[in-house]
């Protein structure tokens, strides 16, 4: 972690000595946006219900009052249009934050967010960059049915030219969002509706968390659990259960999946000789399958077993509560995978 600490902007929120306070995940995202909008007039927020309504999930609460309608811009339900508009404005030098009420709705904006934003720099031969943040809820919420429950990282992480951030705690959400806004490249920032009300300690002082720096949430010697976003919490729960069975798990929170902090994962697997990847997207051609392939390649001689993977089930997200819980990469599935990977099944 020395490289991280050498950055004066970065302070590890979980180990920081300075004062913290407990705030919700949504407050942390808002603080990051507000601080960066105060710092840089080029930054503005747009999306459905972000201004007068205070945000469908209250992430942007109060921002209209502080920054005015010129910088907190309500849009119609028109994802393709306002995404393209934001990209055009970024080509001319602005730094938009685009809120998708849900990343599931970003599918109708697939052309601008996949064909324009990540490729503009390349296709223009370096002339036009696209410093833009797309953010919103990702993953299954609470019984929203299949169309509203996408984990879009399964689709979008296949595309070169975007950075993808999936924070799991309020402190990470703030530090990573500030980095996302300052980044010169397009960033997809994925929040979980299920985490928005989660409270956590967030430093009072300013800090940024760089991309590609995984956090080791729990140290252990028997099995490496790799995850990002909401399932990190499932991993922590599973690790507690498994500890009582004598299996000591190391839980790595990747924080960003592009870039992917492979060195931290490799170092851990070389120690534990076992790995389980937990990914909320579907299994086929997913970030989880990519990470598993990378671990197999780099830790071939270190592994005692193949890398096990836990995903959402390979079916549309069901509505019924029990079915939805079974569908998710839940604690039971994680425990089973770890027992199998460590030959304790």
């Amino acid at each position, binding site marked *: 972690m020395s*490289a*991280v600490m050498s950055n004066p902007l970065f302070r590890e929120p979980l180990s920081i000595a300075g004062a913290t306070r407990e705030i919700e995940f949504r407050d942390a995202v808002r603080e990051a946006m507000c601080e960066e909008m105060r710092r840089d*007039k*080029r930054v*503005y927020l747009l999306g459905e219900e972000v201004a007068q309504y205070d945000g469908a999930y209250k992430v942007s609460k109060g921002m209209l009052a502080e920054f005015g309608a*010129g*910088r907190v*811009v309500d*849009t*119609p339900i*028109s994802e*393709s*249009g*306002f995404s*393209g*508009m*934001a*990209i*055009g*404005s*970024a*080509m*001319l*030098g*602005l730094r938009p934050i685009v809120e998708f009420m849900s990343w599931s709705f970003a599918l109708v904006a697939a*052309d*601008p967010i996949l*064909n*324009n934003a990540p490729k*503009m*720099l*390349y*296709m*223009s*031969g*370096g*002339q*036009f*960059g696209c*410093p833009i943040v797309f953010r919103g809820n990702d993953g299954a919420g609470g019984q929203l049915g299949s169309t509203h429950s996408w984990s879009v990282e399964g689709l979008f992480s296949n595309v*070169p*030219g975007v*950075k993808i951030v999936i924070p799991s705690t309020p402190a990470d959400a703030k530090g990573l969002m500030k*980095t*996302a806004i*300052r*980044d*010169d*490249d397009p*960033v997809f920032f994925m929040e979980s509706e299920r985490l928005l009300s989660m409270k956590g300690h967030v430093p009072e002082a300013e800090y940024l968390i*760089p*991309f*590609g*720096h995984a956090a080791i949430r729990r140290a252990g010697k028997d099995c490496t659990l790799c995850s990002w976003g909401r399932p990190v919490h499932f991993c922590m729960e599973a690790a507690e259960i498994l500890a009582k069975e004598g299996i000591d798990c190391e839980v790595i929170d990747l924080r960003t999946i592009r*870039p*992917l*902090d*492979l*060195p931290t994962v490799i170092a851990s697997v070389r120690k534990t000789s076992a790995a389980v990847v937990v990914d909320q997207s579907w299994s086929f051609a997913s970030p989880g399958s990519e990470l598993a392939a*990378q671990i197999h390649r780099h830790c071939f001689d270190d592994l005692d077993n193949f890398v096990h993977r836990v995903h959402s089930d390979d079916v549309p997200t069901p509505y019924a509560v029990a079915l939805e819980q079974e569908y998710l990469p839940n604690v039971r599935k994680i425990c089973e995978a770890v027992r199998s990977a460590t030959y304790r099944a």
Partner: protein
Amino acid sequence: MSQVAPPAVPTAGAGALSLPVSPTTALQWLRDMHLIREFEVRCMQSYQEKKIGGFCHVYIGQEAVAVGCVAAMRPEDPIVTAYRDHGHALARGMTSRACMAEMYGRVDGCAKGKGGSMHMFDRPNNLFGGHGIVGAQTPLGVGLAFATKYEDEVINGGKSRRVSLSFLGDGAVNQGSFYEAMNLSGLLDLPVIFIIENNGYSMGTAIQRGTTMSHDLCIKGRAHGLREATIDGMDVLSVYRDMKALVEWCRENSRPAIVDMKCYRFKGHSMSDPRKYRTREEEAHHESNDPIITLEHTLTHAGVLDEAKLAAMLKLVREEVREAIAFANASEVTPETELYKDVFVEPWGKYTGSSLPEFMGGATNACTFRATDGKEGLV
């Protein structure tokens, strides 16, 4: 044919000649139109010789549109267009060299050979692409207008009052993104003009086969409260005069507009199009209304052009394009070192950062902030 409402047509220095501009300017337009024509003819030859690959859509027949529209704008007004973009690039001031080298996939091309025919970008001349997906550029054009207005109102407190042009073909009017773009432009009072280059065909589909109310495409903008103009795109003087009035109205009022720009492409949709969907008689009829010949007649009758002047102009144009081809041929094929460049501004992992093309000086693009903090080994 032109139906733009007042303000009055500007006249500048042409006196009794009834030209809306000075003879020098009108001759420059003729030269620009000839340059585009010659460039496109030579592109077709180079394509046959397999020097140019991929898709190639030439602008022959529509030269008056790009030249007249660009003339009606200020240089700082942003422009974005679709894939039939060579004419817009040249009209905006891109050199024939950079444009042809891009066609040839060479490192001296405007996009270092990474964009190709459909993706001409020129930052110094405020050309924001060439875009290959039909209609996708229309929200981008709205974004350019949003940014110029934002710069005035939030950042500078200035009054640059730039107007953005978003070109599209008549085939793009049935894409949803176009309607979303128009709606946003009307809602947010953005100074953007959607210019539908209505050449009557989306690829091989005649307009009435794909578009309702195709006799008047301005109807598509009426639901969004856009200012309207139908303009004869085969006459550069009409294009300039009517666009000038419209651009200044948009600038003054910070409002959007739509233009049904009636024109005709003399060649096929792309290089592989045998044009079975239209008759040779129809083509001959439109070719008799060649915008270049029309301007030549006008200038000749006005006493501004004679055969000797025209011959001298054509000689220079042909030399310029011949030289551009020689330049493109001699330019280095884009090297492998460019493969991982310009994916991200920030260098990280296998990505090597970004640099500007040679025509902009070739300097490294400044990365203002290292998001990854320089960490090694990332994938």
